[in-house]
């Protein structure tokens, strides 16, 4: 609720919000820290921090590699919590965790969620946990006050979307196209229809992700969604040109 209100509030100021993504521990926490600083300073509205998992099925090659390298370097869930605690205490925007269900499951779902809430995380994106499998998770999120972000896909029927909306909080993450993260999306007529369907199905703000990488993409989303999600592009940018390149890139998006 808190998160939804933050978004609605922010939208009164901006045509569209920006959410960015990074993989914790990749290339390392120091760079993560710098990247987040650049993002926040340049007007990012929300940040999803991915806790790496060895089997990130929903992610494409770039984020997959980031997950693996992070783990190979020894990144632990505990380190991710510690880092997140530090970050939330330093920056005022909402932070979310993105990760796969096994990370929660193995930690203990309740313990994980309590801990996340305690360190100031506002919501979670768990792409391999449909509501049918997430009863415990959803109940606890509600109880603890964390937003369980639900995902819409172009393949979702309107009926399915309504069903998902029943469990959602914070906002809805609308996956812009089929496939995994990291590929360019073709924003065609179909896409507009899809977004219209999303809007009809829920009152929650809509974030749009997958393949958004430049100002044109962001502009295109104005009026269709509330939040543009920048994922793979910033990871690529950091790889190619370092953390310092993130600020100007973000600044140029809107």
């Amino acid at each position: 609720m808190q998160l939804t209100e933050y978004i609605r509030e922010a939208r009164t100021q901006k045509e569209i919000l920006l959410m960015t993504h990074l993989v914790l521990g990749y290339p390392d926490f120091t760079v993560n820290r710098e990247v987040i600083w650049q993002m926040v300073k340049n007007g990012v509205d929300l940040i999803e921090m991915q806790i790496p998992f060895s089997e990130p099925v929903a992610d494409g090659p770039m984020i997959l590699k980031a997950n693996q390298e992070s783990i190979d370097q020894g990144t632990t869930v505990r380190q991710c919590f510690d880092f997140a605690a530090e970050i939330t205490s330093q920056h005022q925007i909402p932070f979310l965790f993105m990760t796969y269900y096994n990370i929660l499951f193995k930690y203990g779902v309740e313990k994980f969620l309590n801990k996340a809430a305690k360190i100031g995380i506002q919501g979670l994106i768990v792409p391999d946990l449909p509501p049918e499998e997430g009863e415990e998770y959803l109940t606890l999120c509600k109880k603890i006050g964390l937003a369980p972000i639900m995902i819409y896909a172009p393949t979702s029927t309107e009926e399915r979307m309504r069903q998902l909306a029943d469990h959602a909080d914070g906002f809805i993450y609308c996956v812009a196209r089929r496939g995994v993260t990291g590929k360019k999306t073709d924003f065609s007529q179909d896409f507009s229809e899809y977004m219209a369907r999303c809007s009809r199905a829920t009152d929650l703000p809509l974030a749009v992700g997958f393949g958004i990488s430049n100002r044109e993409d962001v502009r295109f989303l104005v009026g269709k969604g509330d939040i543009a999600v920048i994922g793979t592009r910033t990871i690529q940018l950091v790889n190619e040109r370092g953390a310092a390149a993130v600020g100007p890139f973000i600044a140029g998006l809107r």
Partner: protein
Amino acid sequence: MNRQGYYGAWGGAFIPEVLYETFRELNIAFQAAKADSSFWREYIDLMQSYSCRPTPLTRADNLSDHFGGARIYIKREDLNHTGAHKANNVMGQGLLVKRMGKKRVIAETGAGQHGVATATMAAKFGLECTIYMGEEDVMRQRPNVFWMEKMGATVIPVTSGSRTLKDAINEAFRDWVSSMDGTHYVMGTVCGPHPFPEMVAWFQSIIGLEAREQILAAHGELPARVFACVGGGSNAMGIFQGFLNDPSVELIGVEAGGHGLASGQHAARLAGDDGSAGVAQGYKTMFLQNDDGQMRDTHSVAAGLDYVGVSPILTDLWEKKRVRFAAATDQEVMAALELTMKKEGIIPALESSHGFVQAFKEAGELNKDQAIIINMSGRGDKDIFTIAHAFNDPSWKQFIINKGKEYATD
């Protein structure tokens, strides 16, 4: 099943939203096929005319005499077309694909057997076919890659993760989340999100149906024990289903002990204490993972057993103590393989040899009036590179060196 797709606490369908519709349709198509007795008849016809079903149940007198205990029977899945039980599942899914009207199939493969079987089915049914295979497995199973390609499939080496089976599964899912409209993912074992475990178990149940009838005809009564190797668990589930309702029949699943359970280099999820509950690759089961839930590297001489997860159905049967689990080390496997070749003229796949190991350990505990069945999931000649290597055969090595030189100077 209490909940949809659950076996006790295990199973489920932990899938990304983009696949929700696909799975819904798959469930409907599968349940309709299952309810339609003509579908099963078509399946049986196909397996009889294209593969070699019913596969024989061979009485292994020399091995029985050698161990001086139970009469050993071997269920001969090696005699299937393409050389392993994988054909049962794949041909069944092929018929389902035809029903669903899809034109392309994808699959993961570890040992390459499931890949070869899928490429075979795709050729037979006129489907486009892409096979994902860990780069390490591509290297150790080159002959299988060659055949897949020759049958018209595209084989994509997977370079992420440990570059083995689990990574190939992830990669196949990545394909599927973009291509699901016209593409079916032919899951190779009795794992993955619902309805795959149920579906694969159903198709593989043909093994157990036959085996039960055959042992009654040959031995006059039920076997005391049934042994099967367990990678994902499909061949084991296949034969076990023939005897699940016979409490007198003990069912034993044999996992890859690799270099020994103590070494940590193995793939024993249920035998031993290294497995723990988890959710990955779309389902909940016992995984080999660290305390954070990151999947561990596994090891087995048998590529087909080299997998972090295991069938949720087996995990449930293990928890309920209906199936007992054991592990066989690489070394034990080579010895059992050698003995079986010498005594019976039969070459089990390295995977299958795991079942033989445990059966040999236990045969002597039983008496001559009792029968045991070993499920021989596949034939070993596909494993020539691995087996000749493991036996350190000098003529083989020389042969390869010479061939290599010949090609190098081409």
